[in-house]
C-alpha cells in the first residue's frame, strides 16, 4: 500500500517533465500508473472485499516503522471501506487524468495541472488507507492544500482565488479541530492506531471526554464534507477546471469527511448525540442541496448542489445506524461516485462542444452531441434513482434503512422523499432541458468531443447501468465488506433490482411522481423557490466576505501599531517582550541563585571586559550610525578575543567572521537608510523608556549568566561526547562532530533556516527593485 501511495506521489513529481517531452500523449502515459494501482487494488477484492461473505475480518494491514524511538509508525489498513475508496480514487483518477489531457489540451500550465491533481490523488489515497491517526491527519491536510492549488488553478481570475482561499480556510480550520480531536481520541483510547482503538474495547461513548472529542472530529468532517452551515465553499469551488470538479465531487475531497464519519462509527457511533447530530445536519444539507440545485442554471452549479444532497444523505445514513442504512451507505456512495463523475465530465464536454453550461441557453443538443447525450442520459437516470440503474437500488435500500429508524425516521423519510424528488428534477435539468427540444443558437455550432473527453464518463455511466442490472457483482464482492467495515459486524449483502412489493417501492413511486411534477412545473416551482429565498435570506457566502473584511480591519489596526516601519520600535517591542517573559519567569520561580562561580579572571580578561564597556558607552553616545556600528563592533571583537583567550577557538573564529560580515552588511544597508533621527527629536520619555528596558534586559541576562556559572555543571554530556566522538564519528574535534554527526539533524534544520533567510532577503530586495523599475516606467 505504501508502494501504491508513493508510486502516485512519484508520478506527480515527474508528471510535468513527462508532459514536456510528450505534450500530446502525456495523459495516456500518465494514466498508466493509476490504472496499474487500480488493478492492484482490484486484485485485493477476493481477499478483502469478501469479508461479508463469512470469511471474518480480513483487513490487510501494513506497518512501517517511521520514528521507532518515539513509537511513531506509518500504518495502513485495507478493509472494505478503504478498498472501495481506493478503487474509486485510483479508478476515477485514471479517467480524470485522461480527461484532463483532452480538456486542458494546449493549456500553458497543463504539466503543472497534472502535478497538482496526481499529488491530490496520492494524498487522498493515503488518507483512506491510513490506519495511524497522525498519518491520517497529514494526508487530510495534504488534500486541503492540493485542492487549494487545484481550485486556484486559474489563479489570474480573482473569483478563482477567492473560492480557493475560502475552501482552504474552511477545510483547514476544520482540520485544526480534527487534529485536536484526533489527539484527544488517541490519548483517551490509549493508542493512535485506529485498528487498535477499535479492538481495545475502551468504551469511548462512556468517557467524560466523549462529547468534546466528537464535536472536534465532526467539525473536521463537516467542514470537509460541506455540511450546512459549512456548505458554501463547495459550489464556489466550481471555479476550478472541470476535471477538478469531477474528481473532487465524485470520489474524493468532499467525501473525505463522509469517510471519516463512517470510519469512526464503530468506535464513536450509536449514541443519541451521534444520531441527532448526523441525521439532523445530514438531512438539512440534503434538502438544501436539492433546493439550490433546482434554482441554479449553470450545469456545474446544479451538479455541485446535487453533491451537497449526496453528502448530506451519506452523513444522515451513517447517523441513522440501522442495518439497512449502513448497507445503503455503501450502495449509495458507489452509485453517486459513478454518476457524479460521469455527469461532471460530460458537463465539461457540453461546455467544450457548445461553449456554454447555462441550461437556459441550451436545448436540442441531441442532434450534435449524441454520445455525450447518451452518457448524460444514463448517468442522470441513475441520479434520478430510476430502474434499472444502480442509483435506483441505492434509493431503495436507503428507504428501507429509514423505515427501520422509528418515529424520527418518518420526518427523515419525508425530507428525503422531497430531496430525492429534487434530484429527479435536477436530472431533468441536466439532460432533458439541454438535449431535447428545438436546437438553441448555442446548439447550432456544437460539436461532439474527442475520445479523451468521452472515455471516462462513458465508462462510469456504463458501470452505473451494469451494476444496476447485475447488482450481485458489487454486492457480493465489495459492498458487504464496506458495511462490515462501517458497522464492525459481518454483513452479507444481497442486492436486487426487484424486491417485490415493499413499502420502499411505494416510496419510490411517490418520489418519482413528485419528481416528474417538479420538473414539469419547473417554471412555477422556480418562482416559488425564489419567493422562499426572499423570505429566508440565508446567505452564508456573503457573510463570509463580511467576516474576512472584519478580520482584515482588525489586523490592519494591530499591524499598524506593531509595525510602524521604525526598526527602533521593533527592537523596543522585542526587547520588552523578552524582558517581561524572562523577568516574569524568574520572579514567579522565586529568583535565581546568583553567585560568582569558579571564573578565573586573568588580566587579559579584565582588559577585554573593559574594552566591551568602552564600546558600549561609545555605541550609546554615538551621533551617527557609522559611529554606533564601529563602537558595537569593538564589543563584538572583544567577545571573539575572549573566546580565544578562554580556549574556544571555533567559537572565536565564528564570532570574528560573523562580526566582520555583519559590519559589511550593515554598512551596505546604511547607505540606503534615511539619516539618523536627531537625538532631540526623541522625547525624553521615549529615551527614558528605551533606557529602562535596555538596562532591565541587561541586568536579567547578566544575572542568568551568573546563575549558570554558579551552578555545578553536570559533566556526563561532555564526557560522553569526548569519549564517543572519535570512536563513533572518526573526528577529534568534538564541537564539529556534535554539529555534523551527533546533532546533524538539528544542523540540517539550521542550514535550511539560513537558506530560507538568504532567499527571503534576496526576494525582498529584488521585489523592491522591480517595483522601482515598474514605477519608473509608468
Amino acid at each position, binding site marked *: 500500500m505504501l508502494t501504491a501511495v508513493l508510486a502516485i506521489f512519484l508520478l506527480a513529481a515527474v508528471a510535468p517533465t513527462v508532459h514536456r517531452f510528450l505534450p500530446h500523449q502525456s495523459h495516456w502515459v500518465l494514466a498508466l500508473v493509476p490504472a496499474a494501482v487500480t488493478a492492484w487494488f482490484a486484485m485485493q477484492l477476493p481477499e478483502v472485499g469478501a469479508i461479508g461473505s463469512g470469511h471474518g475480518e480480513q483487513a490487510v494491514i501494513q506497518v512501517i516503522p517511521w520514528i521507532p524511538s518515539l513509537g511513531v509508525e506509518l500504518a495502513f489498513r485495507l478493509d472494505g471501506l478503504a478498498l472501495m475508496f481506493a478503487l474509486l480514487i485510483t479508478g476515477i483518477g485514471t479517467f480524470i487524468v485522461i480527461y484532463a489531457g483532452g480538456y486542458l489540451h494546449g493549456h500553458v500550465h497543463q504539466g503543472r495541472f497534472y502535478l497538482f491533481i496526481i499529488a491530490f490523488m496520492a494524498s487522498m489515497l493515503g488518507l483512506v488507507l491510513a490506519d495511524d491517526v497522525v498519518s491520517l491527519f497529514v494526508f487530510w491536510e495534504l488534500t486541503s492544500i492540493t485542492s487549494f492549488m487545484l481550485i486556484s488553478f486559474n489563479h489570474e481570475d480573482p473569483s478563482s482565488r477567492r473560492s480557493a482561499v475560502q475552501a482552504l480556510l474552511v477545510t483547514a480550520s476544520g482540520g485544526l479541530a480534527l487534529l485536536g480531536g484526533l489527539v484527544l481520541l488517541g490519548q483517551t483510547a490509549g493508542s493512535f492506531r485506529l485498528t487498535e482503538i477499535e479492538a481495545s474495547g475502551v468504551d469511548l461513548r462512556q468517557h467524560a471526554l466523549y462529547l468534546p472529542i466528537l464535536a472536534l472530529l465532526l467539525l473536521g468532517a463537516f467542514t470537509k464534507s460541506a455540511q450546512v452551515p459549512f456548505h458554501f465553499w463547495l459550489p464556489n469551488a466550481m471555479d476550478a477546471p472541470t476535471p477538478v470538479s469531477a474528481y473532487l465531487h465524485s470520489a474524493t475531497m468532499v467525501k473525505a469527511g463522509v469517510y471519516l464519519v463512517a470510519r469512526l462509527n464503530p468506535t464513536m457511533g450509536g449514541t443519541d448525540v451521534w444520531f441527532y447530530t448526523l441525521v439532523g445536519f445530514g438531512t438539512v444539507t440534503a434538502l438544501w442541496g436539492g433546493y439550490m440545485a433546482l434554482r441554479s442554471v449553470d450545469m456545474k452549479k446544479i451538479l455541485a448542489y446535487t453533491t451537497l444532497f449526496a453528502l448530506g444523505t451519506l452523513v444522515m445514513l451513517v447517523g441513522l445506524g440501522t442495518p439497512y442504512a449502513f448497507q445503503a451507505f455503501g450502495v449509495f456512495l458507489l452509485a453517486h461516485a459513478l454518476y457524479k463523475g460521469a455527469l461532471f465530465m460530460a458537463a465539461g464536454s457540453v461546455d467544450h462542444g457548445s461553449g456554454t453550461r447555462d441550461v437556459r441557453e441550451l436545448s436540442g443538443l441531441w442532434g450534435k452531441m449524441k454520445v455525450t447525450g447518451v452518457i448524460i442520459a444514463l448517468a442522470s437516470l441513475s441520479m434520478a434513482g430510476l430502474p434499472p440503474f444502480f442509483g435506483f437500488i441505492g434509493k431503495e435500500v436507503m428507504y428501507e434503512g429509514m423505515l427501520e429508524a422509528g418515529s424520527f425516521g418518518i420526518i427523515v423519510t419525508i425530507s428525503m422523499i422531497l430531496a430525492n424528488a429534487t434530484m429527479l428534477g435536477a436530472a431533468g435539468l441536466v439532460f432533458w432541458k439541454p438535449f431535447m427540444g428545438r436546437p438553441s443558437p448555442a446548439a447550432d455550432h456544437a460539436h461532439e468531443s474527442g475520445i479523451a473527453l468521452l472515455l471516462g464518463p462513458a465508462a462510469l455511466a456504463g458501470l452505473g447501468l451494469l451494476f444496476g442490472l447485475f447488482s450481485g457483482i458489487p454486492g457480493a464482492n465489495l459492498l458487504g465488506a464496506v458495511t462490515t467495515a462501517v458497522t464492525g459486524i459481518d454483513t452479507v449483502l444481497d442486492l436486487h433490482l426487484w424486491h417485490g412489493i415493499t413499502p420502499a417501492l411505494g416510496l419510490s413511486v411517490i418520489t418519482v411522481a413528485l419528481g416528474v411534477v417538479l420538473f414539469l412545473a419547473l417554471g412555477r416551482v422556480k418562482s416559488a423557490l425564489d419567493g422562499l429565498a426572499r423570505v429566508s435570506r440565508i446567505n452564508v457566502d456573503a457573510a463570509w466576505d463580511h467576516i474576512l473584511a472584519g478580520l482584515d480591519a482588525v489586523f490592519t489596526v494591530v499591524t499598524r501599531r506593531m509595525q510602524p516601519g521604525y526598526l527602533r520600535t521593533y527592537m523596543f517591542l522585542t526587547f520588552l517582550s523578552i524582558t517581561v517573559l524572562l523577568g516574569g519567569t524568574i520572579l514567579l520561580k522565586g529568583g535565581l541563585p546568583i553567585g560568582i562561580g569558579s571564573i578565573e579572571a586573568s588580566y587579559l580578561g579584565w582588559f577585554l571586559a573593559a574594552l566591551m564597556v568602552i564600546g558600549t558607552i561609545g555605541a550609546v553616545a554615538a551621533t551617527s550610525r557609522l559611529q554606533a556600528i564601529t563602537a558595537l563592533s569593538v564589543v563584538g571583537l572583544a567577545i571573539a578575543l575572549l573566546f580565544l583567550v578562554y580556549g574556544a577557538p571555533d567559537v572565536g573564529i565564528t564570532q570574528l567572521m560573523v562580526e566582520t560580515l555583519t559590519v559589511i552588511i550593515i554598512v*551596505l544597508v546604511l547607505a540606503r537608510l534615511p539619516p539618523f533621527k536627531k537625538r532631540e527629536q526623541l522625547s525624553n520619555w521615549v529615551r527614558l523608556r528605551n533606557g529602562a528596558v535596555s538596562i532591565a534586559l541587561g541586568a536579567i541576562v547578566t544575572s542568568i549568566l551568573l546563575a549558570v556559572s554558579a551552578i555545578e555543571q553536570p559533566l556526563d554530556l561532555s564526557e560522553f561526547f569526548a569519549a564517543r566522538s572519535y570512536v563513533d564519528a572518526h573526528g577529534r574535534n568534538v564541537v564539529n562532530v556534535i554539529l555534523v554527526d551527533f546533532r546533524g539533524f538539528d544542523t540540517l534544520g539550521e542550514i535550511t533556516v539560513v537558506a530560507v533567510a538568504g532567499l527571503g532577503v534576496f526576494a525582498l530586495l529584488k521585489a523592491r527593485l522591480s517595483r522601482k523599475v515598474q514605477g519608473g516606467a509608468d
Partner: protein
Amino acid sequence: MHSLILQTGTRLITVLMLLFSIFILWRGHNEPGGGFIGGLIAATAFALHGAAFGADAVRRLLPADPRTILACGLVAAIISGLFALFGEGGPDPFMTGRWVEFPNGFALGTPVLFDIGVYLVVVGGLIAMVLALMEED
C-alpha cells in the same frame, strides 16, 4: 568605492581567504574548524571582494548563481543523510553516519559531505544577501 590600496590588498586576501576557508572546512572534523566557519570565511572573502571591485566582479568570480550554490548545499546535506538507507544491516535512521576506512587509518564519511553542504549553504545564502544589497541601485 575605488580605493587602490583596498583593491590591491583584496586581490591577494580574497584568494588566501578562500584557500583558508577550504582548509578550515577540511580539517574541521579533527581540529577547530568546520563547514559553518569555513562558509563564513569564504562569504567574507567574497563580500570583501565585492566591496573593492563591485558586485559584478563577485559574480564573475563565482562558479554559479549564489542561489544555485545554496540549493546544491541543501541537496548535498540531504543526500548525505540518505546514505543511512543503504549498507549492511538494513536501513538506519536518517543521517546515520556511514564511513569508508582506508588501510592507513584515514576515514571518509557522510559527515564530510554534510559539512560541505553546510559550507555551500552558508556561502550561497550570505552572498545572495550581500549581492542583493550591493546591486540594489
